[in-house]
């Protein structure tokens, strides 16, 4: 299997801010790699450095086994990028926009026509061919943005938060499309701060924060890395300190908190955690409402590593 991207020790500074701190990334052919991190964690900066859009202070980037630079046109020929911000010409129609960007990669007019038609079919914009971007909804606009990035059938596709501000239907459509592209042979880098999306489509996940790679592996591997096995939340109208001590003494419970009528219990891996808790509440005659038990998510992974929620942070990178 070919290594598609190999970035080593990338350092990128914006004056005092260290945006990438010895960041490493290796992507094998056929992977869908999820780059997961909160806003401002350095995902977009990492992508821009990989693409040589930004100068790097230190480190090296190899793509398809060749050193990447701003003039590595043979490498760029095989890369498709869907930027975070919709980047299309307002004055051109859907079809013209795709044709323009495909034209930056494919000179043959006949071939390009076929590719444009395929891209339009792929993102299901056929009935919007003659529409100008301002006539398209947010979801359709995102699909156009994707079509412009993938029409030339690249081997490596980089999608930078392609589902931001997209309705659930379009989001599902976009995610299905990404999986389909991967099945057709493309290697994908997918950045997002939506852990559900990353969990859903990515074969491997890199969690990053403050420009550093914190952890990497499959979703299951990442979850196995952390202490949390199950989180139980119970609505309680009243709860005493003595009762809290009782809860904490239950098997597998390593932490608990009570606030605003909600008790959160964090359990290590192990069976029957909910049963133990309910048994304790019943025996102590403690009235309770809704009970909710969840297996660990990537957010829990991030929380345990950084002490912060995945969705904390600034609005943009």
């Amino acid at each position, binding site marked *: 299997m070919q290594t598609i991207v190999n970035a080593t020790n990338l350092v990128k500074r914006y004056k005092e801010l260290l945006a990438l701190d010895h960041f490493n990334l290796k992507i094998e052919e056929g992977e869908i790699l999820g780059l997961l991190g909160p806003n401002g964690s350095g995902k977009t900066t990492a992508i821009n450095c990989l693409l040589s*859009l*930004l100068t790097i202070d230190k480190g090296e980037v190899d793509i398809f086994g060749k050193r990447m630079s701003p003039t590595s*046109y043979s490498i*760029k020929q095989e890369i498709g990028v869907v*930027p975070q911000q919709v980047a299309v010409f307002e*004055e*051109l129609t859907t079809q013209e926009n795709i044709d*323009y960007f495909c034209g930056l990669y494919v000179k043959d007019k006949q071939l390009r026509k076929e590719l444009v038609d395929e891209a339009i079919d792929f993102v299901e914009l056929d009935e919007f061919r003659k529409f100008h971007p301002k006539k398209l909804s947010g979801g359709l606009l995102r699909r156009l943005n994707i079509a412009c990035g993938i029409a030339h059938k690249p081997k490596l596709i980089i999608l930078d938060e392609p589902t931001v501000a997209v309705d659930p239907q379009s989001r599902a459509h976009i995610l299905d499309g990404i999986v389909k592209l991967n099945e057709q042979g493309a290697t994908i880098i997918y950045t997002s701060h939506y852990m559900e999306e990353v969990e859903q489509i990515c074969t491997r996940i890199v969690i990053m924060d403050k420009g550093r790679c914190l952890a990497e592996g499959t979703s299951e591997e990442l979850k196995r890395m952390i202490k949390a096995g199950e989180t139980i939340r119970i609505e309680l109208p009243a709860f005493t300190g003595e009762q809290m001590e009782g809860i904490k003494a239950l098997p597998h419970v390593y932490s608990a908190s009570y606030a605003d009528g909600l008790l959160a219990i964090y359990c290590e891996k192990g069976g029957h955690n909910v049963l133990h808790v309910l048994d304790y509440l019943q025996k102590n005659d403690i009235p309770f409402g809704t009970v909710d038990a969840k297996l660990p998510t990537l957010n829990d992974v991030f929380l345990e590593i950084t002490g912060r929620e995945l969705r904390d942070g600034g609005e943009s990178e």
Partner: protein
Amino acid sequence: MKTLYKYRLKCILGDRANMFWTLVFPILLGTLFYVSFGQLLTNIEQLEPIPVAIVEQQQNESFSETLESLASGEDAFITPQHTNKAQALSMLESEEVDGIYVIDESPSLTVKTDGLNQSMLKSVLDSYLQVTATVTTVAHKDPALIADTVRELTNPPQAVEQISLSSGSLDFMRENFYALIAMTCLYGSFFGLSGAVSAQPNLSALGARRSIAPTPKLTGVWSDILAAVTVMFGIVLVLIAYLSALPNIDFGGNIPAILLTSLCGVFVGVMLGMLIGVAVRGSRGTKDGFLISISLLLCFFSGLMYSNMRFIVEKNAPIFNRINPASLIVDSFYTLDAYGAGERFWTNIVLLAAIGGILCAASVAILRRKQYASI
């Protein structure tokens, strides 16, 4: 490149805001100029004889004859009404006449208000008094010279001979129209700036998208420049055609020279925008502000807002007129109209082409070397 050029053309033509400022606005401004100046010319050309009352209190043959000559013929200057003083004052009060000439040993003029007609009546009287005073003085000192003096006063020698070197004629109104065309050429800088912005990843998402494509940056930039020059050249030709269609406006018959001037002007305009787009640091707004300031300043010194400005600059800092593209464009049209496509015209064209070339080379050099520390 053909595809990029084609779509860039579509983008420029679809950019309504820029199309307004580059096409519609100059036509509106030209129409406004024409309406303002055209009215003035019409007033001058269609000068009506000035109604004037004449009161003869004492015989003065020479002044009476002067007034008679001014009242005779098809292009009579005054419409005299001989009357008495009381009646004349009444006519002046009721504005039936613009002035009263009193024929006396020492003729006088009475007017009620200030105005063009009143000034012209006063000018006639002043000239008469000046001539009679001169003749009287000569008669006292050397009566033998009277005949020569009268001949020279009535047929003054010409220190400057007026000759026409081309079929065209020139007036101050055309200067403003030339400056308007120069402004339009420089407005091509909007499209140049727009091209520069869409080529740079730190300024636009489109720039980022284009920068990660395998097409060399300059290929995209050249197609942008070519498309911008094409559209602006068309716009300037439309403007010239529109202005030429107006009565009394004529750009002369040298069409190839007019096209060449327009093309050079547009090229300089587009490249000015491109250079500002790549060289000036800051956001798009900063670059826009800088560009508008520079364009208006260059147009101001070429005489767009004050038609004598170009001559003031020529007198005090002639080098600035040689490097100000707007002045060079105005002077090229001026020269074509007044003298034809001679040495001065070709000098202007060479200077314009050189300025365009320098701006282009600088833009390309900066753009090629540019690396982005942040986007």
